[in-house]
């Protein structure tokens, strides 16, 4: 008996500890839903459900998703924050690691979640599609012993924004010459767990672990529970030394796990606020609910506090009350030391410019990301011995080739007066320097390696995968290239990603070539008519020249013409000629009026005067006197 029990226990222990394979069949379908209670619209759901299910796995588990696209447009799926060690082809971004999944196709995502645990999420990586609802939470549970904190219950929470129009429409209005300032489209509402006015029932005297994900695509949000504090224990899958704060500032794509201790008494209920950072909005519509109120409910029988007023004054008041912690100062629990000095420093100057089609684009060092004709990963795999040559990946993809195990610094100078959360696929990075907001738009704060205040890097820097840069400021990130793959680095404000605010890392190309890409992925490319062999222009051949030949590649729009073009000169000359002819006509017509009548009268008058005064001869000619006498 005892032996049986022991065997059972062992088997159970083994099963619960040994990695599982989670198989999902995700059929993308349209679902009509009314997320904010004011407007029903078509959302993208999975298996006719929206919001999307939360995926929960344990560390070292394997995930298999059969992703079938039953929509009218292409799709893809990215697992935000997961390293995809050795499985770069499963990362998800379109034209970077895979072809878009065409309507009717099925794509297989099959990978293991290793070396990490925490709060993550998954979302579409095709344009701005995840605004239409293709987003969900992914939790990788660590084993009980690894938690350095105690909690009674886990609660999963997402925040985000909501647009009433479909994202393709919003995008076309945004990227148009009628939006010359590049003003980002303003959402119609914010969401709390994909809905509004949420009540969270809690029991007194308990500790709750709140896993919070910002699944929005534009605005950062403030979170705060009246009279309660948060204790931050995890950021972007990195456990940190507990930090007690009165509010959270969470940018899109970031995650935080916080502990909330409920009060011992059940006399009151409290407001749980999620507030849009309205500084990120170029225009503030009067009917936008910037401040949204939800409730932490201890006692259903007690009155609920009324929703907090939603106006500018209220926003200012609330802002003054909150002191969100600067995530730069979070200390990872693992206390990883500052990585050694970088082998490669990549400096990115970010600007927004209006190009020749009147649309504002985002550029790094003057280059705005344009997707290549062949997904970059397939270029790596097919280019053989030329894979180490940066030119293979195109001149307009901002590609940087880095070698295995190099330490890389990313210096990003934000020359735009906006807040931008940047995300690196495949890695977490150390945030080693970040400047405050630059107050002078004309003279943004740029990283200066000789400035000691820019280079006093912390001993144990904060580590995460999505970090916000301040307006007109900079940050420096450092990571080790220990994960061969093609990794996208981009602003997670999807509107800016569409404007081209991205770079591509080709990390250890020859190591990448050792990874296996399953046939299903190549088949998927056939159905979306995308080539899988060739450089960024789709060219290939036997020689190096053919691989470096970028003729036909996708490039960004030409810049605006600076000054007069041929068209202008022609117009100017034409106008001048016509005006000269016009003036001449006026002259010709005008001079006709010199009155001959008057001059005749004057001449007659003159003759009269002369005659009366005897200065003129009489009318007859002297010489004709004979004639006169004769007549």
């Amino acid at each position, binding site marked *: 008996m005892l032996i049986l029990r022991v065997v059972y226990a062992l088997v159970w222990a083994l099963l619960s500890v040994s990695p599982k394979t989670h198989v999902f069949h995700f059929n993308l379908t349209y679902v009509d839903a009314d997320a904010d209670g004011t407007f029903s619209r078509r959302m993208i759901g999975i298996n006719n459900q929206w919001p999307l299910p939360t995926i929960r796995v344990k560390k070292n588990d394997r995930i298999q998703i059969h992703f079938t696209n039953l929509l009218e447009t292409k799709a893809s799926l990215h697992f935000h924050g997961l390293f995809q060690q050795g499985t770069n082809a499963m990362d998800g971004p379109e034209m970077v690691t895979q072809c878009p999944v065409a309507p009717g196709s099925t794509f297989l995502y099959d990978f293991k979640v290793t070396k990490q645990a925490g709060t993550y999420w998954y979302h579409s990586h095709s344009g701005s599609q995840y605004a239409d609802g293709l987003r969900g939470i992914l939790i990788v549970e660590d084993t009980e012993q690894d938690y350095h904190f105690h909690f009674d219950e886990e609660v999963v929470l997402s925040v985000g924004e909501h647009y009433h129009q479909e994202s393709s429409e919003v995008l076309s209005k945004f990227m148009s010459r009628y939006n010359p300032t590049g003003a980002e489209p303003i959402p119609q509402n914010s969401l709390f767990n994909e809905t509004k006015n949420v009540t969270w029932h809690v029991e007194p005297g308990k500790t709750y672990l709140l896993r919070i994900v910002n699944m929005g695509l534009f605005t950062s949000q403030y979170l705060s529970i009246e009279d309660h504090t948060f204790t931050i224990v995890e950021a972007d899958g990195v456990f940190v030394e507990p930090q007690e704060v009165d509010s959270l500032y969470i940018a899109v794509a970031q995650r935080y796990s916080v502990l909330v201790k409920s009060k011992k008494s059940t006399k009151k209920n409290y407001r749980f606020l999620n507030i849009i950072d309205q500084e990120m909005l170029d225009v503030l519509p009067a009917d936008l609910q910037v401040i949204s109120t939800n409730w932490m409910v201890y006692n259903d029988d007690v009155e609920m506090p009324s929703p907090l007023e939603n106006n500018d004054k209220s926003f200012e008041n609330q802002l003054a009350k909150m002191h969100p912690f600067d995530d730069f100062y979070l200390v990872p629990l693992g206390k990883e030391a500052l990585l050694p000095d970088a082998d490669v420093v990549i400096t990115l100057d970010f600007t927004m410019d209006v190009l020749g*089609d009147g649309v504002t684009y985002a550029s790094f060092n003057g280059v705005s990301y344009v997707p290549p004709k062949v997904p970059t990963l397939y270029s790596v795999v097919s280019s053989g011995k030329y894979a180490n040559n940066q030119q293979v990946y195109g001149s307009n993809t901002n590609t940087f080739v880095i070698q295995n195990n190099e330490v890389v610094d990313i210096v990003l100078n934000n020359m735009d007066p906006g807040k931008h959360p940047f995300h690196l696929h495949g890695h977490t990075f150390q945030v080693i320097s970040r400047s405050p907001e630059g107050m002078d738009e004309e003279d943004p704060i740029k990283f200066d390696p000789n400035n000691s205040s820019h280079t006093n890097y912390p001993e144990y820097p904060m580590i995460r995968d999505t970090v916000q840069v301040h307006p007109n400021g900079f940050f420096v990130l450092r990571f080790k290239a220990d994960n061969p793959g093609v990794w996208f680095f981009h602003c997670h404000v999807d509107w800016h990603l569409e404007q081209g605010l991205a770079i591509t890392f080709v990390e250890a190309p020859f190591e990448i070539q050792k990874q296996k890409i399953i046939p299903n992925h190549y088949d998927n490319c056939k159905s979306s008519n995308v080539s899988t062999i060739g450089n960024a222009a789709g060219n290939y051949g036997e020689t190096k020249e053919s691989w470096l030949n970028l003729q036909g590649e996708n490039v960004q729009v030409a810049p605006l013409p600076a000054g007069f073009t041929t068209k202008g000169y022609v117009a100017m000359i034409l106008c001048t000629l016509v005006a000269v002819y016009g003036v001449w006509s006026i*002259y010709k017509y005008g*001079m006709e009026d*010199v009155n001959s009548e008057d*001059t005749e009268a004057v001449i007659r008058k003159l003759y009269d005067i002369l005659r009366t005064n005897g200065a003129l001869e009489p009318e007859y000619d002297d010489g004709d006197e004979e004639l006169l006498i004769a007549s």
Partner: protein
Amino acid sequence: MVNVFNVQIFFVVFREALEAVIVVSVLLAFLKQGLGGASDDPLVYKKLVRQVWIGAGLGVLICLIIGGAFIGTFYGLGRDIWSKSEDLWEGIFCIIATVLISVMGIPMLRINKMKEKWRVKLARALLKKPSSRAEKWKIGYLTKRYALFFLPFITCLREGLEAVVFVGGVGISEPASSFPLPVVCGLIAGIVVGVLLYYFGSSVSLQIFLVISTCILYLIAAGLFSRGVWFFENYKYSQQTGGDAAENGSGPGTYDIAKSVWHVNCCNPLTDHGWDVFNALLGWQNSATYGSVISYNIYWLAVIAVLVLMYYEEKTGHLPFAKGLTLGKLNPMYYVKGKKKDELTQEEKEELFEQVKHKKLVSGSGAEEELSLTDKEAK
């Protein structure tokens, strides 16, 4: 500079002042030739001359007062109702101004025609018989007695009010400070030219002056027309971008690239000093559109076409390919006002002027003498 001196207003006032002076000079010329027995009695002559001057002066004065008051109150009452669709209004006013200027410009090149027209008009007015006996006794008596006061008074008043309306239309989109100076200059210029015309007749030098000023006027009008069209396009673009794109300066994104013919980031007439003069005189835009360039050319072509037609009509008496048709007949008002029957031949005109010479006006003694039109015996 455009904020202190509005060139369009200058020309409108110039033209109206010129016409007023012509009226005065024509009446004075009639007096000299013998109207109202002026050539018989120097005292009567002086009295009548004084009537003319007082009438004209009073008419002009009242106009200035009314005009000043009108424009003053107008500016006092908020112009801000238009600030929302400012570009649209600017465009409309530019087009109105162009039309007004174009219409009044060409007659300036035919100053003698203008003088002739006034001679006939005034002669007719002086010779008109009252239609009924009752009318004869009420107003007729007074106006006949002081005909040479009322005639210039009413004429100048009417011309002046016309000028006020024109000035209002032309200058409505300009700041109030740009009014006084051009009005004064226009008055002075008009008076000077009228006086020269009176004493020296239409000489070559006067004509050249008129030609040059008309050329400038039409250059300005062409620029205005182009500017009006530009404002319309700018308004449309602003509506589509949901804001005032021009407020962002002259750089990229402040104009519609699809409609642009040329664009330079400097020299913006709306914001850069000095370039507004270039714009006022020649219609310069730093960001030209197809609309503004094409409209500029079309305007000039239209002006040239009209001039060619008028030239042809003067030479041959009718429009090309259409004997019996003149430009006057193309004007719908021709038929409304029944001007056809008002046309006089040269002989009829001579007869008219002879009658004016011998026209007696009411003298101080109250005796009324009238000559009927049937009395063709010249004195």
